């Protein structure tokens, strides 16, 4: 049987790089002096400076993960944790420095803003360079701004929620994040306000040997709803770049939040991101996640279902090619009665890439009548790639319905044969099977990303059957 060739992700649209031209770049490494300098550069209030310094202490105490991908290539002495681009944050693209504006033009962000988004934030290296939102949302009390502005203008809200959902001692890279965080988005949706079209933040890391540590804090109040899209990319350099962002989501009673991420980091990127949501009574958070880029990813969004009747869904796809080790998955804690979770994960590995699905479903003693259903499927397209499934299921009460199923394998020859017996060519049959495999995920992606993903899944067949 001929091999099905699935092309690597075409990265040309992401790999263009600008000159490493910045307003300020902190020296490489991670010391108290550096953390204090970042705090000074950002004009932090005292309480934020204290969080940073406490986090640095914790970072130094915690050990590196003893599981998952090998992170030995990461040397914090070679990473600059803060790079301020030229220009101030603007609310008009015209006011963004030309080279940076061109970058986001090429990524299609301003076009999407015009056609399908209610608001856009754009971060370049360590700072947000552009933020805007439709007028009618401002009138309804929606706040969508960069985190620095939020710290300055809404200190009480930020103090109440910042690093509470994700505590700074959660793991080593959360502590790192809290020590050197910069940029990111703050969204506040007041009670009962429903956004019909999404907000999008895009994160671009241009500077070599640097890190991006943006903090996203979203609060969706009771009965409100929001779709938030996060995109990220970077050009490829020879040395390691680091992304250790943090996303904290608070979804109030009866509220709804959909958080979509399309991650397309370059293949020198270590993507060690942390995302968590706390979900209230009868509320729902849905995660849609596409992981295509990075050299190493460790990314496991988490839903904590604290309110009775809370729900969560995770829909994710990973595509690992050459030199990629994508260790992704999902964690959910059922911490109230009648909660439910649905997980649907797919992965494709080829050309020596490694995909790992790693997860946790924990149903606590008080989560009576909860339900959880997990499905993960892995497709391998050659015999030198790797695909692992490592799910942990922790069930602590009897009044639950829990099921988990996983499968691993290559494109089924029987299915190809069946389709061919219906008059479909072998090439078309294989293309159909791979697209069908990815379809449950791609249909959940924002439409422009779904189209892009389908274009990326471009089958090229070689040889003949035999």
């Amino acid at each position, binding site marked *: 049987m001929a091999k099905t060739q699935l092309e690597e992700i075409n990265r040309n649209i992401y790999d263009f790089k600008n000159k490493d031209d910045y307003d300020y770049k902190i020296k490489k490494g991670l010391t108290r002096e550096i953390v204090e300098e970042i705090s000074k550069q950002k004009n932090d209030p005292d309480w934020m400076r204290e969080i940073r310094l406490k986090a640095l202490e914790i970072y130094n105490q915690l050990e590196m993960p003893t599981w998952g991908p090998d992170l030995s290539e990461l040397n914090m002495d070679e990473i600059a944790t803060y790079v301020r681009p030229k220009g101030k944050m603007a609310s008009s693209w015209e006011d963004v420095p030309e080279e940076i504006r061109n970058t986001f033009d090429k990524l299609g962000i301003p076009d999407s803003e015009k056609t399908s988004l209610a608001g856009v934030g754009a971060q370049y290296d360590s700072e947000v360079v552009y933020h805007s939102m439709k007028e009618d949302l401002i009138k309804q009390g929606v706040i969508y701004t960069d985190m620095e502005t939020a710290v300055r203008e809404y200190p009480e809200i930020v103090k109440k929620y910042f690093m509470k959902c994700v505590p700074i001692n959660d793991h080593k890279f959360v502590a790192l994040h809290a020590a050197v965080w910069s940029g990111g988005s703050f969204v506040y949706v007041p009670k009962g306000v429903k956004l019909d079209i999404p907000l999008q933040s895009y994160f671009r890391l241009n500077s070599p040997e640097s890190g991006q540590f943006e903090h996203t804090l979203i609060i969706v109040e009771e009965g409100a709803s929001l779709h938030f899209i996060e995109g990220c990319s970077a050009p490829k350099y020879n040395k390691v770049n680091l992304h250790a962002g943090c996303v904290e989501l608070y979804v109030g009673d009866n509220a709804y939040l959909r958080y979509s991420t399309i991650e397309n980091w370059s293949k020198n990127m270590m993507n060690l991101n942390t995302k968590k949501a706390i979900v209230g009574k009868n509320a729902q958070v849905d995660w849609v996640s596409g992981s295509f880029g990075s050299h190493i990813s460790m990314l496991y969004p988490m839903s904590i279902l604290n309110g009775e009747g809370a729900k969560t869904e995770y829909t994710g796809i990973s595509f690992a090619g050459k030199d990629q080790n994508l260790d992704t998955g999902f964690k959910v804690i059922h911490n109230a009665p009648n909660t439910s979770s649905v997980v649907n994960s797919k992965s494709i590995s080829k050309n020596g890439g490694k995909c790992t699905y790693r997860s946790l479903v924990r149903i606590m003693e008080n989560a009576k009548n909860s339900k959880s259903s997990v499905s993960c499927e892995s497709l391998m397209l050659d*015999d030198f790639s790797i695909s692992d499934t490592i799910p942990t299921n*922790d*069930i602590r*009460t009897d009044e639950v319905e829990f099921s988990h199923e996983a499968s691993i394998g290559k494109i089924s020859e029987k299915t190809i044969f069946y389709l061919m017996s219906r008059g479909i060519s072998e090439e078309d049959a294989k293309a159909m099977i791979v697209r069908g495999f990815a379809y449950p995920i791609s249909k959940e992606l924002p439409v422009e990303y779904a189209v892009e993903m389908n274009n990326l899944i471009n089958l090229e067949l070689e040889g003949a059957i035999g």
Partner: protein
Amino acid sequence: MEKVKLNQTPVRTCRNFKINNIDFTDKIPSRIPDFHNVKIAQETGKDEIITDYEFDNFEVKFGSGLEDQIKEQANQKIKIDVKSKTDKEIKVEFDFDEENLKLVDYIEIVAEENTTSNIYIIYRNKLCNEVQDHCDDPSQRCSGVQCAPYKAYHNGLIRIVANNNSKVVVNIINLMNKESSNILGVDSKIEDSAKLKLNIVDFGAKTSVTNVYSNLAGKEANNLINSIYLGTDKEVIDMNYIAECFGEKSNINIDVQGALKDEAVKHFKGTIDFKKGCKKATGNEAENCMLLSDKAKSLALPMLLCSEEDVEGNHSASSGKADNKEIFYIMSRGFDKKSAEKLLVRAKFNSLLEGISNQEMKQEISYEMDQKLD
């Protein structure tokens, strides 16, 4: 209390998930006296069985973690060299009592080419068959599993080599009492077209740690692992099953069925690892845990690791209480709830029990199951 990490998974996951190993806190005896209550029987007389077998130094790729004690202090060393071609039984029974409390055993089973064997290895507390002072219910006969006037300790390793075209069935029955400690490793190598079926009944001990490693080395090597467990009180059951497929068209099937009552805890770690070159290998792993109490806990880590494209691997896991509709249906036929639950647990265990050809053994397992579920 000193903790010893046992049953480490072949691949670690997040430490906070608390499943990479078990912290074993039961006392590990430093002195192992002789153990005399061993019965060995074979129906054909054609197989060679050596007691006091002086085994060579061995290494296990994955093990429980207490292999050194076996190397240094084993008080039972048995080798079974299978030569016969019938499925007549070989039975090895270890009975614990007040004079035989500590067993460290090494059993080596070598099935020669084209042979057939059906081996029982039983670890049990001796049935006293009398009403004793410690009996909770004086009207009942003592149960080996439930009757616990003393603590026994068992650490054992069963090594199996299934040579080409051999068919081996090994039934491992743990009916130790509810105060005891059980640590058992099973390490097997399965060659071309050989078939190894492991039936594991894990009903006994306060803490039961079982490590099963299968090396499917040969082409069309076949391994079926059927396991049933039953936990009550505060028992802890930790299972670490690892199968590595090296041979082309090799097949591994793991089916684990269990039930937990009271505050019992179960950890199941199952790994199927498709190694590069095991083309057309297949692997299936199913784990199902029936929770009969809202304080019982089920922790599972069913892993699929894959470095070969041309394979098919599946796993499934489920947990939850007995289906209300099924309970209702049985109760509508005149049974009380406890009997209905018992029937459902028995139904789950049936496929393994049906595979046990020895009727006496089957009855004993059923009796102990009923005692535990009462």
